[in-house]
């Protein structure tokens, strides 16, 4: 293994790339941890954002103003402010206020990791919700009327008629949002969550091997997003309703 690493470093050096950091155990560990953390973040935030998006879309299209109003306000607030600002605000300000209210930071179980997961999922949830709302509103009114005529409640109509059709219409937009979500996890660098951009940044500020680590970063994220997009396309094909015009 070590020989392989040494050969790789020598080979990279021949084309002018400096991968010397691979000989430093502490930097290698931080770097690999960073990759693992990014994968865990993606695996956590994708389902969370989808769950949040569906609930928000349901609230947005509800005919009860006390449900639709706050949901709309939330979507506007999250969608219109930068995610990085939201993250720094929650970690550096909101979390400090929570710590103070609990009588000291030692009593506060929430940290940068929690806020990163929450902010990224909830931000993308707002985008999902808008995509789904479009899908829900595209369901023909006659179809809903028919379902109501069959005795379905409002919630049942949403669950068995509107959402399944809305999901199909909204899928391309949702997959787009998920690709964005993967890239959004990189804002963790600003609050010292050790995801891959943070790890790379910590290494290249010491060693000035920006180009080398940038190449790895680009390949790494392209790989994840290629997989996400492929998976999305497969789901789209699987869910396609013959004759529904999709």
């Amino acid at each position, binding site marked *: 293994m070590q020989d392989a690493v040494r050969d790789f470093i*020598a080979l990279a*050096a*021949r084309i*002018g790339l*400096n991968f010397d950091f691979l000989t430093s155990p*502490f930097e290698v560990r931080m770097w690999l941890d960073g990759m693992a953390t990014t994968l865990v973040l993606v695996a956590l935030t994708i389902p969370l954002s989808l769950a949040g998006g569906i609930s928000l879309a349901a609230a947005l299209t509800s005919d009860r103003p006390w449900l639709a109003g706050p949901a709309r306000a939330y979507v506007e607030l999250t969608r219109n402010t930068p995610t990085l600002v939201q993250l*720094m605000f929650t*970690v*550096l*300000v909101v*979390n*400090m206020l929570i*710590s103070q209210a609990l009588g*000291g*930071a*030692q009593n*506060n179980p929430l*940290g*940068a990791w929690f806020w990163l997961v929450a902010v990224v999922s909830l931000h993308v949830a707002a985008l999902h919700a808008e995509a789904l709302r479009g899908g829900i509103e595209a369901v023909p009114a006659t179809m809903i009327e028919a379902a109501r005529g069959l005795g379905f409640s409002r919630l049942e109509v949403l669950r068995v008629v509107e959402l399944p059709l809305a999901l199909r219409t909204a899928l391309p937009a949702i997959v787009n949002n998920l690709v964005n979500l993967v890239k959004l996890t990189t804002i963790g*660098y*600003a*609050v*010292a969550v050790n995801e891959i951009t*943070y790890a790379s*940044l*910590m290494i*290249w*500020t*010491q*060693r*000035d091997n*920006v180009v080398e680590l940038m190449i790895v970063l680009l390949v790494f994220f392209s790989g994840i997003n290629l997989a996400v997009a492929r998976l999305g396309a497969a789901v789209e094909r699987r869910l396609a309703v013959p004759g529904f015009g999709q």
Partner: protein
Amino acid sequence: MFRKTPLRAAALLAALLAGVSGACADATLDRIKAKGKFTVGVILSGAPFGFIDPKTQEQKGFNIDLARALAEKLGVALETVTVTPPNRVQFLQQGKVDALLANMQVTEDRAKIMDFPPTVFDRAGGAAIGRKDSGIKDWADLKGKPVCVSQGSNFTQPLIELYGAVVKGLPSQPESLLALKGGTCVIAVHTGATLGLMLEDRAEEWKDYGILIPTEIVPADSVVWIRKGEKDTSAALDKALRELITSGKLLEIAKKNRLLNTAFIEEQQKTLSAAR
């Protein structure tokens, strides 16, 4: 290895050629003279080194004054460019600045990729700030504890490797100190001079906090960083630095900007004056 040998040979050849032609300075010094401007990358992360005066919106601090004094010695005007720890080396290497006065001490890794005039103008190490009731008294107490630093800080590696701390690198010092207050970390490690002045100037805001460990971590020499191999720029800046130190101008700049500990500069002044 594969890369360095031809580079070294090229540098040697360049040095020989420079010796032959004699009059021609290196690219940076030529450029400084040609445009009549010395462009310096400075960090504005806080007093005493560099900050923006809230009243006049002017850049102030030790870095700025030293840069201005150096430009004067070179006989050109000063232009400052604000840099941050993650981008400062790129700014220098891409030629956006001629030199860096960016709170960067000499480390082995940095010396591999950049050069500096040998005259040292200050010595700085990291001090540990934390809540007075945190029970931390020694660097060894940081084992397994979260410690905040600025991204790119040269305290990162010793904190992890020597003391086993869990280092959290925030984009810059203000974020790191906010994170300390928010409980993200129990200690923040930054340049001692900056923290000392902050505790003095904002005593009310920081009354529960103090410099908890009496020693500083990895005290190292503060130098002016320039691109690799620029011998003439280095010589010109070195001459200017020596003059600033022996004439007492540097000490004056340090005192004006309230560097709390000027012992090193005074020592340098004595040594250099005696050597003349």
